[in-house]
């Protein structure tokens, strides 16, 4: 029983990463109809950013948690203006291909600079050691990651649901032409929203640095799992992306416990089941046949 609860806890922590990445993908997709293949690369850049700030400039984890996502959001906005923007009026597949090319460049550029070996990044002193959760001892840092991921997801949801900016973004996501006809400048929000999604990926990367190996390929395999997560949750639904992220995290953790050989492929089996049963995803809407 202790094993199961501990694994479920691990699952929630792993799910937190999937949820933050899926959330960024879903926000970007909602506003721009772009599926960002480079999302995993930005997660990797987030982790490398934290590592480089620490080793080159002595900047600690807490500052990196602020600086890196903001810096990457700016990079994201520049990329949106320079490249993505030119293709948004075309078939969404073109931007998928474009961001695939960007992912290849970013990953191999980091590899050529820092090699393929994993970089060590120690936990911040404040979060070292473990916490007694009643049933078992659990690393403090993992608890922090889980709480942080939940706070981020709830905060994004609150912004989207309760603020004027969120209202505009939701309206532009559902009916872009109508929103424009009501006199709202939708185009103004496209670049910041793209930057915000990239920033979320960077944030997840910084959080991953102390508990996962920091290396150039860390995002590439993860992003494909995140694609499966958003197919399961329904890419059009921000709520669905987050819920599916946490759920898949727990499924993977339970898989580790009961069927270790198959734990990596469980998410794809789940995706197959969802495609059979609800092709539009658990929380997705009917897609328009184009």
């Amino acid at each position: 029983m202790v094993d199961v609860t501990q694994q479920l806890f691990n699952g929630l922590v792993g799910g937190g990463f999937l949820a933050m990445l899926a959330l960024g993908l879903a926000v970007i997709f909602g506003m721009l109809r772009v599926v960002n293949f480079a999302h995993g690369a930005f997660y990797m850049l987030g982790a490398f950013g934290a590592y480089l700030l620490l080793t080159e400039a002595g900047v600690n984890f807490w500052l990196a948690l602020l600086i890196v996502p903001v810096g990457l959001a700016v990079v994201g906005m520049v990329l949106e203006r320079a490249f993505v923007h030119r293709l948004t009026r075309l078939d969404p597949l073109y931007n998928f291909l474009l961001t695939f090319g960007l992912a290849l460049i970013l990953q191999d550029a980091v590899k050529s600079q820092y090699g393929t070996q994993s970089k060590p990044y120690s936990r911040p002193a404040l979060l070292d050691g473990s916490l007694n959760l009643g049933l078992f001892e659990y690393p403090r840092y993992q608890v922090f990651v889980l709480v942080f991921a939940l706070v981020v997801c709830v905060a994004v949801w609150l912004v989207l649901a309760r603020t004027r900016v969120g209202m505009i973004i939701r309206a532009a996501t559902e009916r872009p032409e109508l929103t424009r006809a009501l006199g709202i400048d939708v185009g103004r929000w496209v670049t910041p929203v793209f930057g915000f999604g990239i920033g979320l990926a960077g944030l997840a990367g910084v959080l991953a640095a102390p508990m996962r190996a920091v290396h150039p390929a860390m995002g590439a395999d993860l992003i494909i799992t995140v694609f499966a997560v958003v197919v399961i949750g329904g890419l059009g639904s921000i709520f669905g992306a987050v819920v599916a992220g946490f759920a898949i995290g727990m499924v993977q953790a339970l898989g580790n416990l009961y069927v270790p050989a198959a734990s990596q492929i469980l998410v794809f089996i789940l995706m197959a089941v969802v495609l059979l049963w609800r092709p539009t995803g658990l929380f997705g809407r009917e897609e328009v046949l184009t």
Partner: protein
Amino acid sequence: MSIAEMARAASGTTRGGAAERAAGARPAIRWLLLAVGLTAALAMPWVMYPPIAFDIACFALLAVSVDLLLGYTGLLSFGHAAFWGTAAYTATLVSLQTGAPFPLAVLAGMVAAAVLSVPIGYLAVKRTGIYFAMVTLAFAQMIFFLANQWRSVTGGENGLVGPARELFNMDLSDPFFFYYAGLPFILLGLLAAWRVVRSPFGRVLVAIRDNPSRARALGYPVHQYKLGVFVISASLAGLAGGLFAISHGFASLQEVYWTTSGKAVMIVVLGGMGTLWGSVIGAYLVVQLEYFLSDAGFEEIGIVTGSIFVLVVLLFRRGIWGTARHTLEKLQRRRE
């Protein structure tokens, strides 16, 4: 502009227009192209390192199989490494275990790829557009994890070394001779793709690409057509993958990794979607470039290939063959 419109413009399957008016001159040009292509295919191992020549042939067939879906049906498969890789492992295993002649081993790989493509295709055609790409990519990643996990069969990270190549007691271990033994199968695969495109079945595929709702309203079972072409495409990818593994005497995890799927898509887009010739030319350029870079000791190939890909998608969406055809048609129209 949608992928469908771009493929239509590039492949010259426009309604009316210069393409059909110029149809009289077309057969002669076709035969000339075919003759040039065949000559080039036969001459390649004389002018370059023969194993590279065969890699080009294999990737040309893989790219053509991806283009059957992307250019002619409007479906972007980002998971063809699953079929290429499954066939690579199957062909190597069959020739290891049974000592069968290589064409039989390749055939076994092709059958394995076709069988695998039925459930994947059945599920993937439930979605369109960007979702189709993500679903095929995800299933291919599942095959990758399976291959990585199932060490007793695939050898995991070490890969699987195949036996020496021979056929009817002829020693084919020299890549120069193996090229000519394997080339007929590649050409058969390309011929099959060309037949599919030119058949009534292929015309329905183009109709589905251009307007799925209308195709359905006309009574065509769209899902079944898509599944049909998906299985054909996967079989051709399997044929290419099996031959590739036999020619290298080796099947590795690289064959089922997403970078291989991405390379195939890149070749198609560079050559021009909806143009079978374009995929062949794209394969030549990409394989040669990668060989040149790794020969020069440059390991981070992704920086170069990724940049080319970004540039092509931004500035050169018709691809090489599509641009050539477009320019020719424009010249023709001006002359009239």
